[in-house]
């Protein structure tokens, strides 16, 4: 996993609440056995006018020329609800997003983001609203500093938090499986004490 330190990027304002993972990556694109090829189908039903994905929907925010090259997704509450498919953050990452800012995330989606190195930032509803307002005036570039836990946009600075280990894992690009495999003694000790039925 790549290390995450600071990131400066263009913000896409996706002004929709309760975006579920079916919308992020529809089921017809889940039939791959590889980890790549999902970015082109991100938000497929909104992004394209036809089922085959040949006609780009010019009204969908991500398709507007001013948001080309955006790497920060700004969105509303309960982002990533529904299915546990990690294909959703894979698609978001492959499209080029490094950071997602929202007032709240669904639990499984939030964990999946951290596990692949995307930074999900929870700000308050008021802060998110402020960013939406600024973004409506002109395309917005913001700076995210993970070690300092800050989001900076001009004179505005917001702070966010992650759990200690999630922060450490993102900053250091920790291989979580390798990390836990160093704890095999503790796992074996636990197994030795388990009741017979377990």
């Amino acid at each position, binding site marked *: 996993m790549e290390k995450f330190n600071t990131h400066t990027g263009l913000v896409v304002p996706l002004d929709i609440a*309760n975006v579920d993972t079916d919308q992020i990556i529809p089921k017809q694109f889940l039939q791959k056995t590889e980890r790549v090829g999902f970015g082109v189908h991100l938000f497929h039903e909104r992004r394209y006018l036809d089922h085959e994905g040949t006609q780009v929907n010019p009204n969908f925010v991500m398709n507007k020329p001013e948001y080309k090259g955006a790497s920060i997704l700004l969105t509303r509450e309960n982002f990533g609800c529904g299915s546990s498919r990690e294909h959703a953050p894979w698609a978001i990452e492959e499209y080029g997003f490094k950071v997602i800012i929202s007032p709240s995330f669904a639990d499984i989606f939030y964990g999946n983001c951290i596990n692949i190195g995307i930074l999900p930032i929870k700000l308050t509803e008021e802060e998110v609203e402020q960013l939406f307002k600024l973004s409506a005036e002109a395309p917005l570039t913001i700076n995210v500093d993970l070690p300092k836990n800050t989001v900076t946009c001009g004179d505005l600075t917001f702070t966010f938090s992650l759990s200690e280990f999630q922060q450490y894992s993102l900053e250091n690009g920790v291989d979580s499986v390798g990390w836990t495999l160093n704890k095999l003694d503790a796992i074996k000790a636990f197994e030795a004490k388990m009741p017979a039925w377990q």
Partner: protein
Amino acid sequence: MTTSTPQTMYEKLWQTHLVEDTEGETPLLYVDRHLIHEVTSPQAFANLRFHNRPVRHPERTIATMDHNISTRSIKIDAAGEGAANQLRALEKNCKAFGIELFGMGHKNQGIAHVMGPELGLTLPGTIIVCGDSHTATHGAFGALAFGIGTSEVEHVFATQTLRQNKAKTMKIQVNGHVGAGISAKDIILAIIGKTGSAGATGYVVEYCGEAIEALSMEERMTVCNMSIEFGAKAGLVAPDQTTFDYVKGKEYAPKGEVFEQAVIDWTNLRSDADAVFDTVITLEAKDIKAQVTWGTNPGQVVSVDGNVPSPEDFNDPMEKESCKQALVYMDLKAGTKMTDIQVNKVFIGSCTNSRIEDLRAAAGIVERYAGQKVVDAVDAIIVPGSYRVKEQAEKEGLDKIFMDAGFEWRLPGCSMCLGMNDDVLESGDRCASTSNRNFEGRQGRGSRTHLVSPEMAAAAAITGHFVDLNA
């Protein structure tokens, strides 16, 4: 004499699975049972190979084929090339890593969350995970069960553990008893209607009260299955005699003295009487009526004797906007009586409602409309949750009741719940579905889903619209 702090069932499950809680690290929990399927496992296996890591306890993982299999044929390539590739990859991976697989047409094959319980793979007091958000189903047994992403599937393969931050606890108490004809699906939809579709984000929910205790295991599974639909990490029901009677004698369940000891341990799992929950929600069972969703998330639900709401009915600006958008997508007018909504598709199946009791309930309604058939305007399919369910239903003659009435009787699988195979709706189709999600496009681009109980789905198939069966 020692006094200990009263604990909730979740806290007990947490404590009995805590491998390590090191300062500065996310706590490490032991995973007893891992269920896998073809869609969310291939990349996890690929990473194991890349790092040359084995599956630590292959005997604790069980694989099934469910998400994108055909419901018309047991041939592995019957649902297209993409599906066949994934199914073959699962076969190859299970063989290479020593994992038991219930493949196409195997007597134990079924939807993971139907198969696990019916084989006794699901036990109280365990942690069960699967790369599928409806893993919460197994919480009906008093197991801590939740959906995980593919990176976590890999973590479980390699270590038999997972890192989890502790969730908050919510108690949902349903007092008294539901009226005649009210199903477990109505109970859970009513709960989600009350909390909203993100009402339990960050929580593990425990369902309790007389109405929950009175439910059969299959009904409890229906309730816990939809915990994720209001954001909960997991749903739990305290194990009791109903649970023990269900588990006893199942193929993979402990036997003899080991089972007796297990029952003692499982009995101690229930939340202590004075345990404190972060949030408590109470419902009166007698107030719960048959439910039908009208919108595009499971919280957008009303009683069947109600009307489609208007954006003006909501105070919260986000809910107002959400209602507005949902009415457009669903092509519904505010104020329309729910019983006036016509459907052209009916799907009875999914990990929420495809067990034998669900099929019996649906067949019971078909029989109530003696001699009447599925209306011409409707295509109705019944997809049992597993081969065992299918076999039992056929033994009882339910397949005949359905087919005589014009329903299609299909092979087991996830089917139209998510439409990864060819069981998809066309744009504009309106479906009475016993599944768990009414998201935009869930059952097919432009399709419209109304979540209902098996009884309501059967009545909609015969009449072409929703019916207040208690009227």
